Protein backbone atom coordinates (compact mmCIF):
# COMPACT_ATOMS: atom_id res chain seq x y z
CA UNK A 1 0.00 0.00 0.00
CA UNK A 2 2.74 2.35 1.00
CA UNK A 3 4.69 1.74 -2.17
CA UNK A 4 1.56 2.11 -4.33
CA UNK A 5 0.78 5.45 -2.74
CA UNK A 6 4.36 6.50 -3.15
CA UNK A 7 4.36 5.54 -6.82
CA UNK A 8 1.22 7.59 -7.49
CA UNK A 9 2.67 10.61 -5.79
CA UNK A 10 5.85 10.35 -7.83
CA UNK A 11 3.91 9.99 -11.09
CA UNK A 12 1.71 12.95 -10.22
CA UNK A 13 4.76 14.99 -9.40
CA UNK A 14 6.49 14.14 -12.69
CA UNK A 15 3.38 15.11 -14.65
CA UNK A 16 2.97 18.28 -12.60
CA UNK A 17 6.56 19.29 -13.31
CA UNK A 18 6.09 18.65 -17.05
CA UNK A 19 2.86 20.70 -17.12
CA UNK A 20 4.37 23.59 -15.18
CA UNK A 21 7.44 23.66 -17.45
CA UNK A 22 5.21 23.58 -20.52
CA UNK A 23 3.08 26.41 -19.14
CA UNK A 24 6.21 28.49 -18.56
CA UNK A 25 7.38 27.65 -22.07
CA UNK A 26 4.06 28.96 -23.38
CA UNK A 27 4.51 32.12 -21.32
CA UNK A 28 7.95 32.54 -22.88
CA UNK A 29 6.58 32.18 -26.44
CA UNK A 30 3.82 34.61 -25.47
CA UNK A 31 6.54 37.09 -24.55
CA UNK A 32 8.62 36.94 -27.71
CA UNK A 33 5.55 36.69 -29.93
CA UNK A 34 4.17 39.95 -28.58
CA UNK A 35 7.30 42.11 -28.24
CA UNK A 36 6.43 43.45 -31.68
CA UNK A 37 3.02 44.74 -30.60
CA UNK A 38 4.63 47.35 -28.40
CA UNK A 39 8.05 47.87 -29.90
CA UNK A 40 7.96 47.20 -33.66
CA UNK A 41 7.10 50.81 -34.48
CA UNK A 42 9.73 52.34 -32.19
CA UNK A 43 12.37 50.01 -33.63
CA UNK A 44 11.35 50.72 -37.23
CA UNK A 45 11.46 54.51 -36.75
CA UNK A 46 14.71 54.21 -34.76
CA UNK A 47 13.14 56.01 -31.79
CA UNK A 48 14.81 53.26 -29.77
CA UNK A 49 17.73 51.01 -30.58
CA UNK A 50 16.44 47.45 -31.10
CA UNK A 51 18.13 46.07 -27.98
CA UNK A 52 17.05 49.03 -25.85
CA UNK A 53 13.48 48.62 -27.04
CA UNK A 54 13.22 44.94 -26.11
CA UNK A 55 14.96 45.55 -22.77
CA UNK A 56 12.51 48.34 -21.90
CA UNK A 57 9.56 46.22 -22.95
CA UNK A 58 10.86 43.25 -20.94
CA UNK A 59 11.20 45.31 -17.76
CA UNK A 60 7.70 46.74 -18.17
CA UNK A 61 6.27 43.28 -18.83
CA UNK A 62 7.98 42.08 -15.65
CA UNK A 63 6.50 44.95 -13.64
CA UNK A 64 3.12 44.42 -15.31
CA UNK A 65 3.12 40.73 -14.41
CA UNK A 66 3.52 41.59 -10.73
CA UNK A 67 0.72 44.13 -10.97
CA UNK A 68 -1.75 41.43 -12.00
CA UNK A 69 -3.30 40.46 -8.71
CA UNK A 70 -6.73 39.24 -9.70
CA UNK A 71 -5.57 36.13 -11.49
CA UNK A 72 -8.34 34.04 -12.95
CA UNK A 73 -7.98 30.67 -11.27
CA UNK A 74 -9.89 28.99 -14.04
CA UNK A 75 -8.52 28.40 -17.49
CA UNK A 76 -10.57 29.30 -20.50
CA UNK A 77 -13.58 30.21 -18.36
CA UNK A 78 -16.67 30.58 -20.50
CA UNK A 79 -14.93 28.91 -23.45
CA UNK A 80 -14.40 25.33 -22.34
CA UNK A 81 -16.19 23.48 -19.59
CA UNK A 82 -13.69 21.26 -17.83
CA UNK A 83 -16.01 20.24 -14.97
CA UNK A 84 -16.60 16.87 -16.63
CA UNK A 85 -12.93 16.17 -17.27
CA UNK A 86 -13.18 13.26 -14.86
CA UNK A 87 -10.27 12.63 -12.56
CA UNK A 88 -7.44 15.07 -12.12
CA UNK A 89 -5.16 13.15 -14.49
CA UNK A 90 -7.71 13.71 -17.28
CA UNK A 91 -7.82 17.43 -16.55
CA UNK A 92 -4.03 17.66 -16.52
CA UNK A 93 -3.76 15.98 -19.92
CA UNK A 94 -6.29 18.40 -21.47
CA UNK A 95 -4.48 21.44 -20.11
CA UNK A 96 -1.10 20.01 -21.06
CA UNK A 97 -1.95 19.11 -24.67
CA UNK A 98 -3.80 22.43 -25.01
CA UNK A 99 -0.57 24.18 -24.08
CA UNK A 100 1.38 22.06 -26.54
CA UNK A 101 -0.98 23.08 -29.35
CA UNK A 102 -0.59 26.75 -28.40
CA UNK A 103 3.21 26.61 -28.21
CA UNK A 104 3.64 24.82 -31.54
CA UNK A 105 1.37 27.33 -33.28
CA UNK A 106 3.19 30.25 -31.65
CA UNK A 107 6.60 28.95 -32.72
CA UNK A 108 5.43 28.18 -36.27
CA UNK A 109 3.90 31.64 -36.75
CA UNK A 110 7.08 33.17 -35.31
CA UNK A 111 9.11 31.19 -37.86
CA UNK A 112 6.89 32.62 -40.60
CA UNK A 113 7.13 36.10 -39.07
CA UNK A 114 3.39 36.36 -38.57
CA UNK A 115 1.92 38.11 -35.55
CA UNK A 116 -0.91 35.96 -34.24
CA UNK A 117 -2.69 36.14 -30.94
CA UNK A 118 -1.18 34.02 -28.15
CA UNK A 119 -4.50 34.01 -26.31
CA UNK A 120 -6.19 32.61 -29.40
CA UNK A 121 -3.52 29.94 -29.65
CA UNK A 122 -4.11 28.98 -26.01
CA UNK A 123 -7.89 28.95 -26.41
CA UNK A 124 -7.56 26.96 -29.64
CA UNK A 125 -5.29 24.38 -28.03
CA UNK A 126 -7.64 24.01 -25.07
CA UNK A 127 -10.72 23.76 -27.30
CA UNK A 128 -9.04 21.07 -29.41
CA UNK A 129 -7.89 19.02 -26.43
CA UNK A 130 -11.29 19.40 -24.77
CA UNK A 131 -13.11 18.25 -27.89
CA UNK A 132 -10.82 15.25 -28.19
CA UNK A 133 -11.44 14.34 -24.56
CA UNK A 134 -15.03 15.36 -23.83
CA UNK A 135 -16.53 15.79 -27.27
CA UNK A 136 -18.14 18.99 -28.58
CA UNK A 137 -20.23 19.30 -25.41
CA UNK A 138 -17.12 20.33 -23.51
CA UNK A 139 -16.87 23.51 -25.57
CA UNK A 140 -19.11 26.49 -24.86
CA UNK A 141 -19.62 27.63 -28.44
CA UNK A 142 -21.58 30.77 -27.54
CA UNK A 143 -18.63 31.80 -25.38
CA UNK A 144 -16.19 31.05 -28.19
CA UNK A 145 -18.21 33.30 -30.48
CA UNK A 146 -18.66 36.22 -28.07
CA UNK A 147 -15.28 36.05 -26.30
CA UNK A 148 -12.97 35.00 -29.10
CA UNK A 149 -14.40 35.33 -32.60
CA UNK A 150 -16.29 38.63 -32.39
CA UNK A 151 -13.51 40.56 -30.60
CA UNK A 152 -10.98 39.18 -33.10
CA UNK A 153 -12.99 40.45 -36.04
CA UNK A 154 -13.79 43.80 -34.42
CA UNK A 155 -10.34 44.62 -32.99
CA UNK A 156 -8.40 45.37 -36.19
CA UNK A 157 -11.20 47.55 -37.55
CA UNK A 158 -11.62 49.55 -34.34
CA UNK A 159 -7.87 50.01 -34.03
CA UNK A 160 -7.49 50.94 -37.69
CA UNK A 161 -10.20 53.63 -37.44
CA UNK A 162 -8.70 55.10 -34.26
CA UNK A 163 -5.15 55.10 -35.61
CA UNK A 164 -6.25 56.55 -38.97
CA UNK A 165 -7.96 59.47 -37.23
CA UNK A 166 -5.02 59.92 -34.84
CA UNK A 167 -2.43 59.85 -37.61
CA UNK A 168 -4.40 62.29 -39.75
CA UNK A 169 -4.64 64.80 -36.88
CA UNK A 170 -1.01 64.37 -35.83
CA UNK A 171 0.27 65.11 -39.34
CA UNK A 172 -2.08 68.06 -39.74
CA UNK A 173 -1.31 69.67 -36.41
CA UNK A 174 2.43 69.07 -36.32
CA UNK A 175 3.03 70.05 -39.94
CA UNK A 176 4.66 73.46 -39.26
CA UNK A 177 6.90 72.14 -36.48
CA UNK A 178 10.60 72.17 -37.31
CA UNK A 179 12.28 68.89 -38.24
CA UNK A 180 14.46 68.88 -35.11
CA UNK A 181 11.54 69.35 -32.74
CA UNK A 182 9.47 66.79 -34.61
CA UNK A 183 12.22 64.24 -34.23
CA UNK A 184 12.69 64.66 -30.49
CA UNK A 185 9.03 65.15 -29.59
CA UNK A 186 7.77 62.18 -31.56
CA UNK A 187 10.53 60.11 -30.09
CA UNK A 188 9.28 60.83 -26.55
CA UNK A 189 5.72 60.23 -27.70
CA UNK A 190 6.59 56.87 -29.18
CA UNK A 191 8.55 55.67 -26.15
CA UNK A 192 5.74 56.69 -23.78
CA UNK A 193 2.96 55.04 -25.78
CA UNK A 194 4.97 51.88 -26.47
CA UNK A 195 5.80 51.64 -22.75
CA UNK A 196 2.11 51.78 -21.85
CA UNK A 197 1.38 48.97 -24.31
CA UNK A 198 4.19 46.87 -22.76
CA UNK A 199 2.94 47.44 -19.22
CA UNK A 200 -0.64 46.59 -20.14
CA UNK A 201 0.58 43.49 -21.94
CA UNK A 202 2.47 42.19 -18.92
CA UNK A 203 -0.56 42.78 -16.72
CA UNK A 204 -2.92 40.91 -19.05
CA UNK A 205 -0.89 38.09 -20.47
CA UNK A 206 1.26 36.78 -17.60
CA UNK A 207 -1.97 36.13 -15.69
CA UNK A 208 -3.09 33.51 -18.16
CA UNK A 209 -0.11 31.29 -17.43
CA UNK A 210 -0.44 31.92 -13.70
CA UNK A 211 -4.01 30.64 -13.98
CA UNK A 212 -2.89 27.54 -15.90
CA UNK A 213 -0.21 26.67 -13.34
CA UNK A 214 -2.61 27.26 -10.47
CA UNK A 215 -5.11 24.90 -12.06
CA UNK A 216 -2.40 22.25 -12.45
CA UNK A 217 -1.40 22.65 -8.80
CA UNK A 218 -5.01 22.24 -7.72
CA UNK A 219 -5.44 19.17 -9.93
CA UNK A 220 -2.32 17.63 -8.38
CA UNK A 221 -3.66 18.39 -4.89
CA UNK A 222 -0.62 20.49 -4.17
CA UNK A 223 -2.62 23.56 -3.24
CA UNK A 224 -6.01 24.52 -1.84
CA UNK A 225 -8.35 25.84 -4.57
CA UNK A 226 -9.08 28.92 -2.44
CA UNK A 227 -5.46 29.76 -1.70
CA UNK A 228 -3.68 32.77 -3.15
CA UNK A 229 -1.42 32.28 -6.15
CA UNK A 230 1.93 31.24 -4.60
CA UNK A 231 4.72 33.77 -4.97
CA UNK A 232 6.97 31.38 -6.90
CA UNK A 233 4.26 30.99 -9.57
CA UNK A 234 3.96 34.75 -9.91
CA UNK A 235 7.75 35.16 -10.07
CA UNK A 236 8.27 32.33 -12.54
CA UNK A 237 5.55 33.60 -14.90
CA UNK A 238 6.78 37.18 -14.69
CA UNK A 239 10.34 36.09 -15.47
CA UNK A 240 9.27 33.79 -18.31
CA UNK A 241 7.27 36.46 -20.14
CA UNK A 242 9.95 39.09 -19.53
CA UNK A 243 12.70 36.81 -20.80
CA UNK A 244 10.63 35.97 -23.87
CA UNK A 245 10.06 39.67 -24.50
CA UNK A 246 13.76 40.38 -24.13
CA UNK A 247 14.72 37.61 -26.58
CA UNK A 248 12.47 39.53 -28.94
CA UNK A 249 10.56 37.91 -31.77
CA UNK A 250 12.66 39.72 -34.37
CA UNK A 251 10.91 38.03 -37.29
CA UNK A 252 7.55 39.38 -36.14
CA UNK A 253 9.00 42.77 -35.19
CA UNK A 254 10.26 43.05 -38.76
CA UNK A 255 6.89 42.19 -40.29
CA UNK A 256 4.98 44.64 -38.11
CA UNK A 257 7.57 47.41 -38.22
CA UNK A 258 8.72 47.20 -41.82
CA UNK A 259 6.43 44.84 -43.70
CA UNK A 260 2.97 46.27 -43.24
CA UNK A 261 3.58 50.01 -43.62
CA UNK A 262 6.72 52.12 -43.95
CA UNK A 263 6.37 53.76 -40.56
CA UNK A 264 7.56 57.25 -39.77
CA UNK A 265 7.77 58.51 -36.19
CA UNK A 266 4.42 60.43 -36.13
CA UNK A 267 2.70 57.26 -37.37
CA UNK A 268 4.53 55.21 -34.75
CA UNK A 269 3.24 57.47 -31.99
CA UNK A 270 -0.30 57.52 -33.34
CA UNK A 271 -0.33 53.73 -33.77
CA UNK A 272 0.94 52.91 -30.28
CA UNK A 273 -1.26 55.62 -28.74
CA UNK A 274 -4.28 54.00 -30.37
CA UNK A 275 -3.15 50.53 -29.24
CA UNK A 276 -2.54 51.61 -25.65
CA UNK A 277 -5.88 53.40 -25.36
CA UNK A 278 -7.88 50.55 -26.89
CA UNK A 279 -6.18 47.79 -24.89
CA UNK A 280 -6.62 49.70 -21.64
CA UNK A 281 -10.25 50.71 -22.15
CA UNK A 282 -11.74 47.76 -24.07
CA UNK A 283 -11.81 45.26 -21.20
CA UNK A 284 -13.66 47.84 -19.12
CA UNK A 285 -16.47 47.78 -21.70
CA UNK A 286 -16.66 44.01 -21.56
CA UNK A 287 -14.81 43.31 -24.77
CA UNK A 288 -11.26 42.19 -24.06
CA UNK A 289 -9.37 42.63 -27.31
CA UNK A 290 -6.19 40.80 -28.23
CA UNK A 291 -3.07 42.98 -28.13
CA UNK A 292 -1.91 41.48 -31.41
CA UNK A 293 -5.08 42.28 -33.34
CA UNK A 294 -5.21 45.79 -31.93
CA UNK A 295 -1.54 46.52 -32.65
CA UNK A 296 -1.81 45.27 -36.23
CA UNK A 297 -4.97 47.27 -36.86
CA UNK A 298 -3.32 50.39 -35.43
CA UNK A 299 -0.31 50.05 -37.71
CA UNK A 300 -2.58 49.63 -40.75
CA UNK A 301 -4.49 52.72 -39.60
CA UNK A 302 -1.28 54.71 -39.32
CA UNK A 303 -0.68 53.92 -42.98
CA UNK A 304 -4.22 54.83 -44.00
CA UNK A 305 -4.14 58.13 -42.13
CA UNK A 306 -1.00 59.39 -43.81
CA UNK A 307 -1.30 60.84 -47.25
CA UNK A 308 0.64 58.85 -49.79
CA UNK A 309 1.67 56.08 -47.40
CA UNK A 310 1.60 52.58 -48.78
CA UNK A 311 -0.10 49.74 -46.96
CA UNK A 312 1.08 46.32 -48.11
CA UNK A 313 -2.24 44.52 -48.23
CA UNK A 314 -0.54 41.30 -49.29
CA UNK A 315 1.28 41.16 -45.96
CA UNK A 316 -1.98 41.99 -44.18
CA UNK A 317 -3.73 39.23 -46.10
CA UNK A 318 -1.22 36.66 -44.88
CA UNK A 319 -1.76 37.81 -41.31
CA UNK A 320 -5.52 37.56 -41.64
CA UNK A 321 -5.14 34.00 -42.94
CA UNK A 322 -2.95 33.21 -39.93
CA UNK A 323 -5.56 34.71 -37.60
CA UNK A 324 -8.34 32.69 -39.21
CA UNK A 325 -6.51 29.43 -38.84
CA UNK A 326 -5.09 30.08 -35.35
CA UNK A 327 -8.03 28.49 -33.53
CA UNK A 328 -8.44 25.43 -35.78
CA UNK A 329 -4.68 24.87 -36.19
CA UNK A 330 -3.72 25.04 -32.52
CA UNK A 331 -6.94 23.12 -31.80
CA UNK A 332 -5.93 20.35 -34.20
CA UNK A 333 -2.51 20.05 -32.57
CA UNK A 334 -4.11 20.10 -29.11
CA UNK A 335 -6.51 17.33 -30.14
CA UNK A 336 -3.88 15.23 -31.93
CA UNK A 337 -1.44 15.36 -29.03
CA UNK A 338 -4.29 14.55 -26.63
CA UNK A 339 -5.03 11.37 -28.60
CA UNK A 340 -1.34 10.44 -28.64
CA UNK A 341 -0.91 11.04 -24.93
CA UNK A 342 -4.18 9.46 -23.88
CA UNK A 343 -3.97 6.29 -25.95
CA UNK A 344 -0.29 5.72 -25.23
CA UNK A 345 -1.23 5.68 -21.55
CA UNK A 346 -4.24 3.44 -22.17
CA UNK A 347 -2.33 0.93 -24.31
CA UNK A 348 0.78 0.71 -22.20
CA UNK A 349 -1.00 1.02 -18.87
CA UNK A 350 1.47 3.73 -17.97
CA UNK A 351 0.48 6.86 -16.10
CA UNK A 352 3.08 9.16 -17.54
CA UNK A 353 4.50 7.74 -20.80
CA UNK A 354 1.91 9.62 -22.92
CA UNK A 355 2.77 12.94 -21.33
CA UNK A 356 6.47 12.29 -21.71
CA UNK A 357 6.18 11.38 -25.41
CA UNK A 358 4.07 14.48 -26.15
CA UNK A 359 6.58 16.60 -24.28
CA UNK A 360 9.44 15.14 -26.35
CA UNK A 361 7.45 15.74 -29.56
CA UNK A 362 7.02 19.37 -28.47
CA UNK A 363 10.72 19.79 -27.75
CA UNK A 364 11.61 18.09 -31.03
CA UNK A 365 9.38 20.26 -33.21
CA UNK A 366 10.45 23.47 -31.47
CA UNK A 367 14.12 22.58 -31.91
CA UNK A 368 13.52 21.80 -35.58
CA UNK A 369 11.74 25.13 -36.17
CA UNK A 370 14.44 27.00 -34.28
CA UNK A 371 17.18 25.38 -36.37
CA UNK A 372 15.21 26.21 -39.50
CA UNK A 373 15.02 29.87 -38.42
CA UNK A 374 18.81 30.00 -38.22
CA UNK A 375 19.03 29.55 -41.99
CA UNK A 376 17.60 33.03 -42.47
CA UNK A 377 18.15 34.67 -39.13
CA UNK A 378 16.41 37.94 -38.34
CA UNK A 379 18.07 39.72 -35.45
CA UNK A 380 18.74 43.28 -34.25
CA UNK A 381 21.31 43.73 -37.02
CA UNK A 382 18.95 43.21 -39.95
CA UNK A 383 15.50 43.75 -38.45
CA UNK A 384 15.21 47.15 -40.15
CA UNK A 385 16.52 46.16 -43.57
CA UNK A 386 14.56 47.35 -46.56
CA UNK A 387 11.38 45.28 -46.98
CA UNK A 388 11.51 43.07 -50.04
CA UNK A 389 15.26 43.53 -50.38
CA UNK A 390 17.39 40.41 -50.50
CA UNK A 391 17.73 38.86 -47.09
CA UNK A 392 20.93 39.36 -45.17
CA UNK A 393 22.13 35.89 -46.00
CA UNK A 394 23.63 34.94 -49.31
CA UNK A 395 20.60 33.10 -50.65
CA UNK A 396 19.12 36.36 -51.88
CA UNK A 397 15.57 35.05 -51.78
CA UNK A 398 12.87 37.69 -51.74
CA UNK A 399 10.59 37.76 -48.73
CA UNK A 400 7.96 35.33 -49.63
CA UNK A 401 4.37 34.78 -48.72
CA UNK A 402 2.91 32.35 -46.28
CA UNK A 403 2.35 29.80 -49.01
CA UNK A 404 5.91 29.73 -50.23
CA UNK A 405 7.22 30.15 -46.71
CA UNK A 406 5.26 27.12 -45.63
CA UNK A 407 6.42 25.29 -48.71
CA UNK A 408 10.00 26.20 -47.95
CA UNK A 409 9.56 25.10 -44.36
CA UNK A 410 8.34 21.71 -45.46
CA UNK A 411 10.77 21.34 -48.29
CA UNK A 412 13.58 22.58 -46.13
CA UNK A 413 14.69 24.79 -49.00
CA UNK A 414 16.61 27.96 -48.40
CA UNK A 415 14.02 30.38 -49.68
CA UNK A 416 13.68 33.22 -47.27
CA UNK A 417 10.75 33.75 -45.02
CA UNK A 418 10.49 36.54 -42.58
Amino acid at each position, binding site marked *: MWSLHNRCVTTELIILVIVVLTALAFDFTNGFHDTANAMATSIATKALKPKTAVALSAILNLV*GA*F*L*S*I*EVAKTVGKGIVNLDNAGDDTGLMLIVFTGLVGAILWNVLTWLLGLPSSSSHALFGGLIGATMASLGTDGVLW*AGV*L*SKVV*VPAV*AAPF*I*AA*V*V*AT*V*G*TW*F*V*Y*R*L*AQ*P*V*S*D*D*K*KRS*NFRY*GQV*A*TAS*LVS*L*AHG*TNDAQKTMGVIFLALVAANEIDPNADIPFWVRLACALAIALGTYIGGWRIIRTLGKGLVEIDS*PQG*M*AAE*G*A*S*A*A*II*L*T*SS*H*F*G*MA*LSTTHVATGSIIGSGLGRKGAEVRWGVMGRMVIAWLITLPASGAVGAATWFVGHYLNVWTGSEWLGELVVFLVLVGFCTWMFLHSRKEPIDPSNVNDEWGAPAASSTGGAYSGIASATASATAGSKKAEV
Partner: protein
Amino acid sequence: MNIVDIIGKIIPVLLAGLFFGAGLPALYALGMRMLAGTTEYTADGRLVEIEGPSALAKAVGYIIFAIIFVVIIIGILWIAKDFILHITGFNLFGLAGK
Protein backbone atom coordinates in the same frame (compact mmCIF):
# COMPACT_ATOMS: atom_id res chain seq x y z
CA MET B 1 -25.18 37.21 -29.38
CA ASN B 2 -26.91 39.06 -32.18
CA ILE B 3 -25.68 41.86 -34.35
CA VAL B 4 -27.30 44.57 -32.20
CA ASP B 5 -25.48 43.31 -29.09
CA ILE B 6 -22.24 43.23 -30.99
CA ILE B 7 -22.60 46.78 -32.28
CA GLY B 8 -23.70 47.87 -28.81
CA LYS B 9 -20.42 46.55 -27.44
CA ILE B 10 -18.23 47.89 -30.22
CA ILE B 11 -19.48 51.49 -30.12
CA PRO B 12 -18.25 52.36 -26.60
CA VAL B 13 -14.89 50.71 -27.31
CA LEU B 14 -14.59 52.71 -30.53
CA LEU B 15 -15.60 55.99 -28.87
CA ALA B 16 -13.21 55.53 -25.95
CA GLY B 17 -10.51 54.58 -28.44
CA LEU B 18 -11.13 57.70 -30.49
CA PHE B 19 -11.22 59.94 -27.43
CA PHE B 20 -8.02 58.66 -25.84
CA GLY B 21 -6.27 56.85 -28.65
CA ALA B 22 -6.69 59.49 -31.34
CA GLY B 23 -7.44 62.49 -29.11
CA LEU B 24 -4.31 62.33 -26.99
CA PRO B 25 -1.82 61.96 -29.86
CA ALA B 26 -3.64 64.83 -31.58
CA LEU B 27 -3.43 66.92 -28.41
CA TYR B 28 0.27 66.12 -28.15
CA ALA B 29 0.76 67.29 -31.73
CA LEU B 30 -1.14 70.46 -30.87
CA GLY B 31 1.18 71.01 -27.91
CA MET B 32 4.13 70.58 -30.24
CA ARG B 33 2.66 73.15 -32.60
CA MET B 34 2.21 75.65 -29.78
CA LEU B 35 5.91 75.36 -28.98
CA ALA B 36 7.00 75.34 -32.60
CA GLY B 37 7.42 79.10 -33.07
CA THR B 38 7.85 80.24 -36.65
CA THR B 39 9.39 77.84 -39.12
CA GLU B 40 10.62 78.09 -42.66
CA TYR B 41 11.81 75.71 -45.33
CA THR B 42 15.47 75.96 -46.22
CA ALA B 43 16.68 75.75 -49.79
CA ASP B 44 17.41 72.04 -49.37
CA GLY B 45 13.90 71.35 -48.13
CA ARG B 46 14.43 71.14 -44.38
CA LEU B 47 11.99 72.78 -42.00
CA VAL B 48 13.86 74.91 -39.47
CA GLU B 49 12.78 77.20 -36.67
CA ILE B 50 13.56 80.85 -37.31
CA GLU B 51 11.78 82.37 -34.33
CA GLY B 52 10.83 80.92 -30.94
CA PRO B 53 7.21 80.68 -29.75
CA SER B 54 5.47 83.60 -28.02
CA ALA B 55 5.10 83.49 -24.24
CA LEU B 56 1.38 82.77 -24.55
CA ALA B 57 1.84 79.94 -27.04
CA LYS B 58 4.57 78.54 -24.84
CA ALA B 59 2.29 78.58 -21.78
CA VAL B 60 -0.55 76.89 -23.69
CA GLY B 61 1.88 74.29 -25.03
CA TYR B 62 3.20 73.42 -21.58
CA ILE B 63 -0.34 73.23 -20.15
CA ILE B 64 -1.23 70.76 -22.92
CA PHE B 65 1.84 68.64 -22.16
CA ALA B 66 0.97 68.73 -18.45
CA ILE B 67 -2.56 67.48 -19.20
CA ILE B 68 -1.16 64.61 -21.26
CA PHE B 69 1.32 63.76 -18.51
CA VAL B 70 -1.50 63.59 -15.96
CA VAL B 71 -3.60 61.38 -18.26
CA ILE B 72 -0.66 58.98 -18.66
CA ILE B 73 -0.21 58.81 -14.88
CA ILE B 74 -3.92 58.07 -14.56
CA GLY B 75 -3.47 55.39 -17.23
CA ILE B 76 -0.70 53.72 -15.20
CA LEU B 77 -2.79 53.91 -12.02
CA TRP B 78 -5.65 52.40 -14.01
CA ILE B 79 -3.44 49.46 -14.96
CA ALA B 80 -2.34 49.12 -11.34
CA LYS B 81 -5.77 49.63 -9.74
CA ASP B 82 -6.21 46.01 -8.64
CA PHE B 83 -2.67 45.94 -7.28
CA ILE B 84 -3.29 49.14 -5.32
CA LEU B 85 -6.53 47.71 -3.92
CA HIS B 86 -4.74 44.54 -2.86
CA ILE B 87 -1.77 46.27 -1.25
CA THR B 88 -3.39 49.33 0.34
CA GLY B 89 -7.09 48.49 0.37
CA PHE B 90 -7.75 51.71 -1.51
CA ASN B 91 -10.19 51.24 -4.37
CA LEU B 92 -8.99 53.73 -6.95
CA PHE B 93 -11.67 54.84 -9.42
CA GLY B 94 -14.03 52.55 -7.44
CA LEU B 95 -13.60 49.96 -10.18
CA ALA B 96 -10.88 47.61 -8.95
CA GLY B 97 -11.54 43.92 -8.58
CA LYS B 98 -14.10 43.86 -11.37
